[in-house]
C-alpha cells in the first residue's frame, strides 16, 4: 500500500511532537483524503472475507480505501493478518506496527474521560481502542455538548469511556 508523503509526514510530525495541533493536522490530513469515509463501508465486507480466508481480497479491498482508512486500527490489523496468511512477512509486520501506532495515537490523545475524551476519526476506532484496553462495552450513547459530539461507552467494569469523533 502506498501512503502519500503528506500523510506520512503528518504522522511523523505528530509522533515527534505529540501536541493537540499535530494531532489535528494528522487527523485533518487523513479526513481530507478522497477515500476517507467515516462510516467505513469496507469494514463489514473485509470482516466477512477475513472469516472466509480470502486474504488477497481483504488486502485489495482495504487498500482501495487507503489512505482514507489510514490509522484505522482495524484496517491495519486486518491487513497484517491477511499479509501474514499469504506469507508476506515484511508487510505483515509493517501493518502490525501501523496498527499499534494507530492505537497509540488514540490512547495518547486523551484519557477517555469527559474532560479529556479520546479523539477518533471513526466509530470502529472506538471499538478497536476498547478491545485494545481489554474492556467490554455494554452500552453506548451519544452526547452533544457545546457543538461537540461524544460517544460514551458504559463498560462492563463500571467505567464510562468517552470518545470524540473529530
Amino acid at each position, binding site marked *: 500500500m502506498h501512503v502519500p508523503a503528506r500523510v506520512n509526514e503528518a504522522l511523523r510530525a505528530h509522533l515527534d511532537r505529540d501536541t493537540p495541533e499535530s494531532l489535528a493536522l494528522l487527523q485533518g490530513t487523513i479526513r481530507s483524503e478522497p*477515500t476517507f*469515509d467515516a462510516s467505513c*463501508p469496507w469494514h463489514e*465486507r473485509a470482516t466477512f472475507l477475513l472469516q472466509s480466508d*480470502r486474504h*488477497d*481480497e481483504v488486502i*485489495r479491498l482495504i487498500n482501495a*480505501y487507503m489512505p482514507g482508512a489510514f490509522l484505522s486500527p482495524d484496517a491495519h490489523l486486518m491487513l497484517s493478518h491477511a499479509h501474514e496468511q*499469504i506469507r508476506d512477512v515484511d508487510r505483515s509486520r509493517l501493518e502490525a506496527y501501523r496498527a499499534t501506532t494507530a492505537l497509540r495515537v488514540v490512547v495518547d490523545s486523551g484519557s477517555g474521560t469527559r474532560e479529556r475524551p479520546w479523539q477518533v476519526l471513526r466509530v470502529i476506532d472506538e471499538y478497536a481502542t476498547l478491545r485494545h484496553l481489554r474492556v467490554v462495552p455494554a452500552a453506548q450513547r451519544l452526547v452533544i455538548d457545546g457543538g461537540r459530539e461524544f460517544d460514551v461507552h458504559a463498560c462492563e467494569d463500571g467505567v464510562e469511556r468517552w470518545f470524540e469523533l473529530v
Partner: protein
Amino acid sequence: MGTPIRTTVETEHPFFHVQIVDGVVEVLQFDRIDERGHAEFLERLAAFLSRALAQHAEERLADLLARFGPAPDPQREAVMAFVAERLASAARSRPRPQRRWFPDQADGRDPAGDVHVSVAGTDVVVLEAPPHALEHPGRAAQAIMTALNLASERLAGDIDSLAQRRGDRDQQLPEPDWARMAVLAQRYRQGYV
C-alpha cells in the same frame, strides 16, 4: 439440468491447452517453462485463460438463452447489443471504491499458497507464481487450476448471493419498454444524447 457445456481452447506457440466444463477448469496443459521467460509465460497464460473463460461464458449464455430465453424481440436485442458494446468498452476500467459492495473480482490460491489467481468477470487479472512453483509443468498446471477454480467459484458465489438478496425486489419490476429503449440506444450511438 442440460447437457454440460464443454469448452476446449488450444494454442500452439506457446502450447497451451485448457478444457472448461460448466465453469470449472478440468484440464490445463502447457510445456516446460524456461525460467528466464517466467514473467512473460505467466502473462501469456493469463491472457490465454481469459480468452478461454470468455469463450466459455459466451457458450454457456447462448445455451441458457436457447433454453430459457425470451422469444426473439428485435428491439430488446438492439438494446442488449448496445449494452454489450458499452460493457465491452468499459471492460478494462477500474471503478472507484463504492459505498455499496459489488462482486466484481475474487481471488484464489493453491493449497501451498504459492500460486495466486484473481478473476474479474472472465479476465484473469492476476496470475502470480514463483519460479519454483513452475518447475514441474504438471504440478504447476494443477496448482494454477486449483487457484483459478477457487477464484471463479468465489466470484460466482458472490454474484449468486447478491442476486438472491436483490431477487425479491427485481421480481416486482415491470417489463422494460424495449421499443423506447431501442430508440434511446440508437440516439446514444448517433451522439444525440
